């Protein structure tokens, strides 16, 4: 029995890696044969970044079971910290991959620190109170970054808060208040992004399938019962939260470097909600679902451009309808029918999966 569970988990995890690698291979082939649109090409790295953001948030929301509305805050710390590290490495003459690795490392370190500092007090709260406090943290981070100035030139680093440091040329700034992060070089490396995504997935899956992961899920399902069998609630909550923050930082660094410029306002409440939408649509606790949802929902609004003025309305309707179809009893009968139809002429569009094998599948 135990062996059986192990194989199921193993299989399920590798399906996820397989999907990512398949996506990578298809994109590379399309690119090599010149069939990939510029639009899609430009979105590849952001898709990976959003997938990491979603997977990492799923750790907090799905696996730990605490609602966070401030995930974008950690992403922005990683983005700005990573951008700064990359700029310094770039000045020192480092290559693209070194800059990226350095940025991701810096992003992870800073957002881990932030996750720890924020988690320490706020994880004592529960439910919607925790949600609002994470939202508050995200707003504070945004507000601080809007007023932060960091520039570098021959005489070293210059920082300013609220006001610009005097005598620094406009070009010397890496982070310039309202103008946000100004990247020295755009690093848009799809293979590296896929490697990072897989690395994050491995970390998340290993955490979930470990003893700690089971402890985290136990306290999600029943806190008091978990405590009664000697699970240290605070430290396991903290573990999930900090790992989640750390990976958000990695995603932030990856995303930030792929853009020419990023404003602090990019990572606001709406961005947090967007990531949450990925998670909920993909299924709570279902990491693979998060990754796929992130990819699809990043592509979807772009693909709806032909709808012109109605684009965002249709996007909203799609969101509502999908949520209703996934959860309501009204659509259930209809759903079964369509599913039956689709099964008969099965296409390659959908990944083979079964909710029963989801490692942490939580029934809504």
């Amino acid at each position: 029995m135990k062996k059986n569970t192990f194989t199921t988990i193993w299989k399920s995890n590798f399906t996820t890696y397989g999907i990512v690698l398949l996506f990578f291979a298809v994109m590379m082939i399309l690119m090599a044969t010149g069939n990939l649109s510029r639009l899609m090409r430009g979105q590849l790295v952001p898709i990976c970044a959003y997938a990491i953001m979603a997977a990492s948030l799923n750790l907090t929301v799905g696996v730990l079971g605490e609602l966070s509305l401030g995930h974008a805050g950690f992403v922005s710390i990683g983005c700005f910290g990573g951008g700064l590290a990359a700029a310094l490495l770039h000045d020192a003459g480092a290559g693209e991959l070194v800059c990226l690795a350095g940025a991701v490392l810096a992003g992870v370190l800073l957002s881990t620190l932030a996750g720890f500092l924020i988690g320490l007090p706020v994880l004592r709260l529960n439910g919607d109170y925790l949600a609002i406090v994470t939202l508050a943290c995200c707003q504070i981070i945004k507000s601080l970054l809007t007023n932060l100035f960091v520039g570098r030139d021959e005489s070293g680093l210059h920082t300013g808060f609220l006001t610009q440091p005097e005598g620094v040329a406009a070009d010397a700034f890496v982070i310039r208040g309202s103008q946000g992060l100004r990247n020295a070089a755009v690093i848009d490396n799809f293979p590296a992004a896929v490697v990072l995504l897989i690395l994050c997935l491995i970390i998340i899956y290993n955490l979930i399938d470990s003893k700690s992961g089971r402890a985290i899920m136990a306290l999600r399902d029943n806190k008091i019962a978990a405590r009664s069998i000697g699970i240290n609630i605070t430290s396991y909550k903290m573990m999930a939260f900090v790992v989640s923050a750390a990976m958000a930082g990695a995603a932030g660094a990856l995303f930030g470097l792929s853009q020419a410029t990023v404003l602090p306002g990019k990572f606001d409440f709406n961005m947090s909600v967007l990531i949450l939408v990925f998670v909920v649509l993909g299924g709570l606790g279902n990491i693979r679902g998060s990754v796929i949802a992130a990819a699809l929902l990043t592509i979807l609004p772009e693909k709806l451009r032909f709808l012109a003025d109605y684009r965002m309305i249709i996007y909203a309707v799609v969101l509502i309808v999908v949520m209703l179809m996934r959860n309501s009893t009204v659509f259930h009968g209809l759903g079964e029918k369509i599913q039956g139809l689709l099964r008969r002429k099965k296409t390659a569009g959908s990944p083979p999966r079964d909710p029963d094998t989801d490692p942490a599948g939580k029934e809504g």
Partner: protein
Amino acid sequence: MDFLSNLVNGISLGSIYAVIALGYTMVYGIAKMLNFAHGDIIMVGAYVCFYAVYHFGLPGWAGVLLAMLLCLILGVAVERLAYRPLRRADSLAVLITAIGVSYFLENTAQLVFGANNVFFPNLFEAEPIRLFDGRLVISVVTLASIGICMAVMVILTLFIEKTKLGKAMRAVSEDKDAARLMGISVDRTISVTFAIGSALAALAGVLLCSAIPSLSPMTGSMPGIKAFTAAVFGGIGSIPGALLGGLLLGVIEVMGKAYISTQLSDAIVFLVLIIVLLVRPTGILGKKVQEKV
């Protein structure tokens, strides 16, 4: 004098937050869902009132009533179409649906009303009260919104405590299944909750835009978040808490701007919120819920 003036301005802003928070907290308290579309219903209400008064020349009170009526219908329709099918679903699924509704309302409003801001008419003809040689100004909107807040709070409390429907609401809020066993129609009770909440949202929209007259399809989104914050501040689900939370939020925001920094006013508001919640984890007037196995 400056301090007093800032205090008045803070209360003025806070009273607007409070009116919005009252609707928020009522829906949350009974339907147990965070209705992120609440802010956008506010926006719709304000637009309805704007068009009624500006284009069709209706008197202000008629515009307000029309806005309340249409928002009531809108609120009930949204509940019926988007939220009711999810009654048994995970609370997060409802949250995301609410966000979808919010996007939908914002973007539809842009198509229907246009993207340009409009300037909300002054519905309160009376001159503001000027004290101390004009150094302290209290606008009529402020007085009206404080008055309305108080009135709404009292009426809501009485309604929930004293009427049969209010009793049903409390029962639904405690335990939906048990309420159903007692012969209470859960769907109908929640519909009524949404109807009241949405009519309140329209009223709040009119007050918001009377105080801050620039109206656009995005007008509701930030006040919506602020009001949510205010509701949590006061203890979400608690009606007096929403009033207190709203007023405090407004005062902190204005004081933070006046005495610390206009650049960081948001950070200050949210920092205070965090500190308050750390000291009182269920808000100022929130009830502590005993966790059970």
